[in-house]
């Protein structure tokens, strides 16, 4: 009711058009989502030079695949290894790399995740289904300034013969936030 009231008043003033809102909604429902980030990850798994470019300048390497735009202007890609696991949070609000992951799920924006991920990441990851061995160091990234992060997960074992497309299908949104492994 209140959203409709705001839209109606702004439409009458000529400040917004319902059709333009429709097109923005459609873009984020249909075209801008984690399937984009999955293509980036799969390419990095099969192409060593791309992976190096991605880690050196995330924004430029992601743009090579055609992805960019709001909340993706300054991308840093952080790589999981057998020794280090990366996970991303925004404690102050909801910063998230829209061009590669779309809009964030509710849990990412929720007080429990934002409060606890910086304080007890190992516990929170375990609760969310990711039990990391004690030998793995956890690196949390709080995106409080202008950088937006994408986690590059480790390529799963037993995927040697797979095509880039098949690999992309293994890459989940949660793996690229760092709360799961593919």
């Amino acid at each position, binding site marked *: *009711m*209140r*959203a*409709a*009231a*705001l*839209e109606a*008043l*702004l439409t009458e*003033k000529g*400040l*917004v058009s319902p059709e*333009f*809102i429709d097109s*923005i*909604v459609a873009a*984020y*429902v249909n075209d801008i*989502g984690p399937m984009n980030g999955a293509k980036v990850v799969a390419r990095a798994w099969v192409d060593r030079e791309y992976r190096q470019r991605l880690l050196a300048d995330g924004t430029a390497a992601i743009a090579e695949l055609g992805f960019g735009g*709001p909340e993706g202007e*300054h991308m*840093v890609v952080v790589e999981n290894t057998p020794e280090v696991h990366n996970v991303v949070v925004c*404690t*102050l*609000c*909801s910063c998230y790399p829209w061009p590669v992951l*779309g*809009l964030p*799920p*509710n*849990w990412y*924006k*929720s*007080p*429990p995740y*934002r*409060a*606890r991920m*910086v*304080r*007890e*990441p*190992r*516990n*929170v990851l375990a*609760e*969310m289904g990711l039990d990391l061995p*004690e030998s*793995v*160091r*956890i*690196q*949390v*990234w*709080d*995106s*409080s*300034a*202008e*950088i937006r992060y994408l986690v590059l997960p480790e390529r799963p074992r037993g995927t040697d013969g797979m095509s880039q497309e098949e690999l992309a299908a293994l890459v989940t949104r949660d793996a690229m936030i760092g709360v799961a492994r593919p």
Partner: protein
Amino acid sequence: MRGVDGVHDLGGMEDFGPVVVEPAEPVFHARWEGRVFGIGAILTVQGLASTNTVRHAIERMDPSHYLGSPYFEHWLTAFATLLVERGVLTREQLEARAKGPFALSRSSRAPRWSADEPAGPRFAVGDRVRVADEHRRGHTRCPRYVRGKQGVIDRCDGAFALPDADVHGEDAPLEPTYSVRFDAAELWGREAEPSAAVSVGLWQSYLAPA
């Protein structure tokens, strides 16, 4: 130098319980959420809203409203607040059209910002820094849980408008930003989990040499 004490500044707070994950969650849970998102994109292009003014308007929500409302209601409240504050709409118009109360954020108590002279980078990767420990009204991007803590510069990022000044619509100085890595034990003491670190993006004027 500055820190926020707002309810939105959640890092490290206790007793929020488990993270609740909704399986197969849609991008928007109801039609109104998408409408609010679209309105926000348009207002941003028109210069009636910006990242920092919207964030600050959300931070000025009544704390119980902030914690008790769905995410896109934060955006709705912020846009309505900014449009009323800029004289584009009135609260009476909003309430008449909504046929009921339309909660807005509280007025800003942020003092005017006296910007420092633009400065080049003061720190390099590997430098030890301490985050200034100051309580200050208004918008900032220096989270409370790192205030007064020591860390190490782990990456130098570009220069960006200082949010504390940008929120006033002034010509905010561009300031170098850094990723600063804090050991879990520095942040949380004896209760810290072993083998963990948190890296936080911070503007230069939040930092001093350690």
